[in-house]
């Protein structure tokens, strides 16, 4: 393997200044579970890795009117956080099935989003919660909806000299229920063939779906919101007919590819199946306010 230097700044300012100084010769590293693998596969070959692990505060979960999950928070922390499990269970569920315990102990939520894999575990759940990415550079800070953060397979909207500082999560409306479903080839330590997040807000008296958020992963160049499917659900009682219609619509909203994990046809079919299953599962969880 090519040699590289490893710099570990102690502040965000220092990290941004190193990023400016080294430009294309540098690559950021958080948990390294994508970066080290990509380096070994020669998909990247930086002269310098700039580690974000020494920057205080980036690994914190905070609530200040809005929930903020620092980019360096690990999936293990998310999976085990009482707060996240209670307030954002779809995200906790997604983090808990990413890789293995060893991977989750170091892999971060920021790294998962920045790698921008179409199948990234946490993307669908963050899309249904309408999360925003909090970005910082030497020129200041900006917030970007997660939908516009994903640009293409392996491509995100970060400027070269920008760091993802954290994810901002608005609380979902009361009376919301949801589910996260991952289809892999095996039960654990496998990337998704298709993944689906469902978040439904139901009128507690009538059971009518007031608001629906559905997101799909691994079925298009980027993780995406299935907005036509959401429209079918909103304003309706979620009976078998509507649920089936939603599943059919979700199939039309994807544009999957064929790869070693599955064919395009299989992915499309399973996206529909998982959307239906996700809705049904959410309804069973009716008593649980997300």
């Amino acid at each position: 393997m090519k040699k590289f230097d490893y710099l570990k700044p102690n502040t965000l300012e220092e990290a941004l200044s190193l990023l400016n100084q080294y430009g294309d010769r540098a690559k950021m590293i958080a948990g390294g579970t994508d970066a080290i693998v990509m380096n070994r596969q020669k998909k990247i070959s930086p002269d310098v890795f700039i580690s974000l692990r020494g920057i205080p505060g980036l690994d914190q979960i905070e609530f200040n009117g809005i929930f903020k999950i620092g980019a360096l928070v690990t999936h293990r922390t998310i999976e085990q956080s009482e707060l996240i499990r209670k307030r954002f269970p779809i995200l906790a569920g997604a983090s808990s099935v990413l890789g293995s315990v060893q991977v989750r102990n170091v892999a971060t939520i920021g790294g998962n989003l920045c790698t921008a894999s179409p199948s990234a575990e946490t993307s669908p759940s963050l899309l249904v919660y309408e999360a925003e990415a909090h970005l910082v550079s030497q020129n200041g800070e900006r917030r970007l909806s997660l939908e516009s953060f994903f640009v293409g397979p392996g491509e995100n909207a970060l400027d070269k000299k920008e760091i993802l500082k954290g994810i901002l999560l608005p609380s979902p409306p009361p009376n919301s229920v949801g589910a996260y479903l991952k289809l892999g080839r095996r039960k654990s330590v496998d990337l998704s063939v298709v993944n689906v997040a469902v978040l439904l807000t139901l009128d507690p008296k009538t059971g009518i779906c007031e608001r629906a958020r559905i997101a799909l992963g691994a079925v298009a160049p980027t993780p995406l919101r299935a907005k036509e499917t959401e429209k079918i659900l909103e304003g309706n009682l979620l009976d078998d007919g509507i649920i089936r219609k939603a599943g059919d619509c979700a199939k039309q909203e994807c544009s999957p590819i064929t790869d070693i994990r599955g064919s395009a046809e299989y992915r499309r079919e399973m996206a529909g199946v998982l959307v239906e299953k996700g809705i049904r599962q959410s309804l069973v969880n009716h008593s649980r306010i997300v």
Partner: protein
Amino acid sequence: MKQTIRFKLNGDPIQIEVEPHLTLLEVLRNELELTGTKEGCGMGECGACTVLINGRAVNSCLFPIMETDGKNVITIEGLADVDGNLHPIQRSFIENGAVQCGFCTSGMILSAKALLDENPKPTEEEIRTAISGNLCRCTGYLQIIEAIKEVNKNS
């Protein structure tokens, strides 16, 4: 250029000079000659390289050596006591026939240790989750799960 790092290795503070591009696994095996930690895939998939860092199971093949600075690292060599008596998890693996070729064993035992330190009486489901990142090609998982269950059975 080599850099100096300090960390605790199996209870003892050490200071070493390392090339910054190496992984913890490479330093353990090639420089510190602790070859109990194995390299299987080198890609985070198999768990043969599992060690504990600040008590948590981590794949040392993906762990940049520079991140070890200031940490507490436990490898399989650190489990037996000073008189060479095996750790209860090691004994349970032997007694339950959970070791064949042994290539996965160091990693399995450290994943089990991380689990049992946090949760002394885990359910079978919790054991399965804890070792889902450790592949075994010969023993079969049932004996391994049994061995982990037995460790604290009588305590």
